């Protein structure tokens, strides 16, 4: 009887997951409207720029890369939360991954979509983007594959394709569960039709499960090096140039660590909001936040170490132009940004996360939000800090973002939230079948323990 009781509790928890998909939730609807309105700011500002030309942005000689490239690097970094973390947890078979993977994978997909928009926005004339695609035409325009910008396109395309498929594959069985429910209740609703289409005829046979699990494992193994390559290649956009404080051998790993750091930060904030908003504390439990908090603490120390190593070598090398950028960052014009970054990225995590109470859902969300601010500043310092003092120092200049760039940045945050709200209302944010599988394994372990206890004399 105890197991039937446990089953009933598990079913009631599942209902909390499924309710946003089957019933009208005013909070989610209002959230979608508000974030949709903020997202509209992106398209309004971008449209304004397209009609009035790129001159309406604040970028100018010598700071040719401003907010747009800062945001590009920031969003691509955030995309490392999901697929990479999810893949690592799957490969290592960490049991606590089950409720985390889907919310993480969705973050990756949406952050990549938004990150990929920024180079198009930065182009000024986005309709000439196809010049970067190898399509034979009479104009004889052909991409230069030796350029890190071409590597960006290939890496981001590969990662986006992989992330979308990696999100969808484990979603198929859940869509089948929802289809079966919907067909039982009322097969003629649009919702039932949507779930039928999304489930693409999944039946749950032994062969289907075997192939799906093999596919997910293979994807997890493939996607890890792809994720690492993406941010390494983004770092090479900078490191392959001879600009001061860009031409660094550790930029690849430094960017990867920073990307995972900012990605997990978003994940912690998103999970906290999901837990509060959807009442799914049974899945996104304190234990999950505690584990993520510990992981995050390790990344805080790694990021701090990389930052120290990067700045120490520049200071010790004492090359004139490098020291100029360094000094402006530590003591000069950019020092308020730098020290805010150090506070939010190092001090806040190290002050809160070592304590078990600090690794509570609220504690990790506060740290995550703090690190997000710090990581955006880090991207800004790398892009604008260096370009303000290029190697040819007679072109020293400054940069201030225009309202168009601000609008696009704020709109991109709205777009991310809007996409996430939409996702929560169309798919279970926690993988139902993976949680069920975990429950079956628990029952099996209990049976084995009971059998062992009976055998003991």
């Amino acid at each position: 009887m105890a197991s039937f009781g446990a089953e009933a509790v598990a079913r009631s928890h599942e209902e909390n997951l499924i309710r946003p998909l089957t019933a009208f939730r005013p909070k989610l609807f209002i959230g979608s409207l508000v974030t949709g309105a903020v997202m509209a700011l992106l398209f309004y500002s971008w449209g304004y720029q397209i009609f009035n030309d790129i001159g309406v942005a604040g970028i100018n000689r010598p700071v040719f890369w401003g907010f747009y490239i800062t945001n590009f690097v920031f969003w691509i970094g955030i995309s490392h939360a999901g697929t990479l973390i999810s893949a690592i947890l799957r490969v290592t078979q960490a049991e606590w991954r089950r409720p985390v993977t889907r919310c993480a994978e969705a973050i990756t997909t949406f952050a990549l979509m938004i990150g990929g928009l920024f180079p198009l926005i930065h182009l000024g004339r986005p309709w000439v983007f196809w010049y970067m695609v190898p399509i034979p035409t009479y104009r004889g325009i052909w991409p230069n594959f030796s350029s890190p910008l071409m590597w960006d396109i290939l890496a981001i395309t590969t990662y986006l394709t992989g992330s979308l498929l990696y999100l969808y594959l484990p979603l198929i069985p859940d869509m089948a569960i929802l289809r079966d429910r919907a067909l039982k209740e009322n097969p003629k609703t649009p919702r039932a039709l949507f779930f039928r289409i999304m489930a693409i005829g999944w039946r749950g046979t032994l062969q289907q499960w075997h192939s799906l699990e093999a596919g997910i494992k293979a994807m997890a193994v493939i996607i890890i090096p792809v994720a690492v390559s993406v941010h390494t290649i983004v770092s090479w956009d900078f490191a392959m140039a001879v600009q001061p404080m860009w031409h660094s051998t550790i930029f690849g790993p430094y960017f990867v660590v920073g990307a995972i750091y900012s990605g997990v930060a978003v994940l912690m904030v998103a999970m906290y909001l999901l837990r509060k908003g959807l009442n799914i504390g049974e899945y996104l439990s304190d234990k999950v936040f505690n584990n993520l908090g510990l992981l995050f603490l390790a990344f805080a120390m790694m990021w701090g170490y990389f930052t120290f190593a990067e700045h120490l070598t520049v200071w010790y090398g004492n090359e004139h132009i490098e020291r100029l950028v360094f000094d402006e960052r530590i003591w000069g014009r950019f020092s308020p940004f730098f020290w805010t970054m150090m506070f939010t990225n190092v001090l806040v995590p190290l002050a809160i996360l070592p304590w078990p109470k600090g690794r509570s859902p609220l504690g990790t969300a506060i740290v995550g939000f703090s690190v997000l601010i710090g990581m955006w500043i880090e991207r800004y310092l790398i892009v604008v800090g260096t370009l303000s003092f290029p190697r040819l120092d007679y072109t020293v200049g400054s940069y201030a973002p225009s309202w168009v760039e601000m609008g696009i940045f704020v709109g991109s945050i709205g777009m991310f939230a809007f996409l996430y709200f939409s996702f929560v209302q169309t798919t279970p944010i926690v993988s139902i079948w993976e949680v069920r599988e975990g429950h079956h394994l628990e029952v099996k372990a209990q049976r084995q323990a009971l059998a062992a206890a009976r055998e003991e004399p």
Partner: protein
Amino acid sequence: MSERIHAAFVSPYDVRDALDRLEQDGVSTDDIEVRSSAPLDHDVFPKRHGVHSRMPWMALTGAVLGGTGLFSLVAWSATIYPLPTGGQPLIAIPPTGVVTFEGVALGAILFTVATVLYECGLPGLWSAGTGPLDHHLADDHVLVTVKCDEGASMDWAAKALETARE
């Protein structure tokens, strides 16, 4: 005349008992279909039902084809549209290697997904989910369907929650 008997079980262990019973009765594994809403534990269901996957080999094939394809594109581009390289090789390994790596990954990803879809028979029948007991899958029950002669014994389904004949 043959018919299909469907049985929905609450526990995977009851399903295993039912499958053992069917095996004793001489029912071919080809005539038995087990379906569930979550993967069934391999300890409970040993691989006796002929499931298989060519996943690693297909992923590897995709990786080789993807890598070869993009390497060829880059090498061909460098030859057809030569850039001044200051005496360095036209097809330099470092930049070509980066692009080739992405081709390897993209090829492996696409072949993996294609293999999953092919082996699972997806996109599948529009009738999926419309079987007489399919709603039990949503409740985490396990369905067993047996193709047998009309009027065949249903003793194997003694522990089932619900049964149906088609």
